[in-house]
């Protein structure tokens, strides 16, 4: 009896230290900051302290991806109509026999529950199926389009994060001055303006009026550039869509960074840093910035999903042959296999980004995990 009680007390103590360690930003809706890693005791496990939480997270991620796949299937099938209806409709005068034939060929005549298990079984074997619309395997369609979206999304995120942070830092260090006011108002404007409108205005200004940049597409049609010239050509085509997409996120990060910096400036340890005789620059960039980055990094992870949604708009406005437009087309044509494949792909992207963000977080904040 005595032993049991002791263990309980120890267990309680462990919990206590866990709650002390939990930092204020761990509540920001991340899937990854609760439980698991705090239970780790490096002395008890032989697995290196940094590998273990990643592994456990990986298992959870797989479960999440499976759940998302199932949910996708259910939601997509709740919408009326299927690819056979659309194709039959497009062909003009389709007879009921033709429709029934299409349905049978695509396996759409099976009960939904059977379709569901067939689908989940195929997913387990990484078989994304066949796009009836394009007449090609979904996997090859996705991998053909994915690079285009990535060269749009990654520079966007980097540009937005770096520029947004810089603007936020500048505003916070000059709070209340015209510089702060200009940045804050600018951020508010771009945060509130719809993406597609900014895109169109930029096309009109830089593409049509000034003629400096191409108005759409990913490369100059018919130019057949190779090597460095090709890279340069794609680069020129990238500028407008990347700027359009990043303005919104830049505005968001600038606002967030400013608020976060100001909050950290008010902390006790900043007074300590000043009392050591450090210059204001050193206080801001060494002591404030690193702490202020934490909530911004959290949001960065969460926004990857949001960004994939944003690419749909921008790819449509700029005629960019990426995954976003493919997804949009697949919705309109009820190309269920393709849509589900893209959704699955996106969920894997988002989940793996979150794991990367978590790793970054551990590096930035020693209070998290077994650091």
């Amino acid at each position, binding site marked *: 009896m005595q032993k049991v009680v002791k263990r309980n007390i120890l267990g309680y103590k462990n919990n206590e230290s866990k709650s002390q360690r939990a930092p204020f930003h761990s509540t920001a809706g991340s899937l990854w900051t609760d439980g698991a890693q705090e239970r780790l005791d490096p002395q008890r496990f032989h697995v290196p302290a940094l590998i273990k939480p990643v592994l456990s997270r990986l298992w959870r991620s797989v479960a999440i991806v499976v759940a998302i796949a199932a949910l996708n299937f259910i939601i997509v099938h709740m919408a009326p109509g299927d690819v056979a209806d659309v194709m039959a409709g497009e062909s003009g005068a389709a007879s009921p026999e033709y429709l029934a034939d299409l349905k049978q060929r695509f396996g759409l005549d099976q009960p939904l529950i059977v379709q569901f298990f067939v689908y989940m079984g195929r997913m387990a074997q990484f078989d994304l199926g066949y796009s009836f619309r394009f007449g090609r395997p979904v996997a090859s369609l996705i991998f053909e389009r994915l690079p285009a979206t990535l060269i749009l999304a990654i520079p966007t995120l980097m540009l937005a994060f770096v520029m947004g942070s810089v603007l936020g830092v500048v505003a916070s260090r000059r709070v209340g001055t015209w510089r702060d006011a200009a940045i804050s108002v600018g951020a508010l404007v771009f945060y509130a303006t719809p993406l597609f409108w900014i895109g169109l205005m930029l096309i009109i200004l830089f593409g049509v009026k000034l003629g400096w940049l191409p108005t759409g597409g990913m490369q100059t049609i018919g130019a057949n550039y190779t090597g460095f010239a090709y890279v340069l050509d794609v680069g020129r085509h990238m500028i407008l869509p990347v700027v359009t997409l990043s303005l919104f996120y830049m505005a968001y990060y600038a606002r967030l960074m400013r608020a976060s910096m100001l909050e950290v400036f008010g902390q006790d*340890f900043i*007074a300590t840093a000043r009392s050591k005789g450090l210059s204001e620059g050193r206080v801001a960039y060494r002591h404030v910035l690193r702490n202020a980055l934490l909530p911004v990094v959290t949001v960065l992870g969460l926004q990857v999903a949001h960004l994939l949604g944003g690419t749909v708009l921008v790819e449509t406005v700029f005629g960019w042959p990426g995954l976003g437009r493919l997804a949009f087309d697949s919705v309109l044509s009820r190309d269920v296999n393709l849509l589900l494949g893209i959704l699955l792909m996106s969920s894997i992207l988002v989940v793996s980004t979150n794991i990367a963000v978590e790793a970054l977080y551990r590096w930035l904040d020693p*209070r998290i995990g077994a650091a």
Partner: protein
Amino acid sequence: MAPLLDVRDLTTHFFTQKGAFAAVDKVSFSVNAGETMALVGESGCGKSVTAASILRLVPDPPGRITGGEIIFEGRDLLSLTMREMRKVRGGRIGMIFQEPMTSLNPVFTIGDQITESLREHRSISRADAERRAIELLDLVRIPDARRQIHNYPHRLSGGMRQRAMIAMALACDPALLIADEPTTALDVTTQAQILELLDELKRSLGMAILLITHDLGVVAEYAQSVLVMYAGRGVEAAKVEDLFHSPIHPYTRGLLGALPHPDDDVDSEGRPLPLNEISGMVPALDAMPAGCRFEPRCSYAVPACKMTDVRLAPLAEGVRSAACLRAADIVQDQP
């Protein structure tokens, strides 16, 4: 010999939407080398703002030092450029704060935060700085210093963090340590340990301490001289023995009278008596009386107190002063 720190008529205003308020109003005191001087008073009396003003750390806006002189080692700190001031901060004057839990940066190791100060003020190699950091942690009795310098603050208890803060403040051998309520956030046992440590360090390193506290017990135990503050002003300055033996200002008398004596404060049947208190409240910053600020709560008050803006004035004996019109009468009344 000139005192190490001589604060004369220091005035610090806070500029708010309701107007400008003097949180510190013409406060004067001095600290001699090797001595512990206590600033004592209740919350909001301006003692922490006074401490922050000495290092010019009052956040601006809303606060600004609007008058007076702070002579430290022969120079007026208020006339120094920012660059010169930064050499004083952490170099000649160290400071420790009330909240050890939040006064250390959570994302840097203890060692990083100590060596940062050393490398700011001295041209010293990384390895030497680290060696010095270990020495300092040994000095403040943090066990296993060699390992602790690689630890992050969240791994340390409150008492240990305050020790680490002290090590940081002492890194460059300051002549003066400002301790702003260094033990308020700690439990009683740890409080005593930290104060003992500070007292020992003061003796062994020969530095002076400006101790900000609201705890008269701490003042009696560790300080040599004391300034009592009330509503932004100094009301009584004296050697510690004099102050406790024969308090003059009615506020000081009220404070000492409010100290509980659990063994004596009983009625004839052994039941505890109610605790003594000073009736009334500290006036709000925007509703300060024109005359003596303690007058509304004072049992010695005479009509003249309402009119006279009475300031700290030396008494006949010369070593002590009080800001009270009736100081002479009170001295005579004393047994």
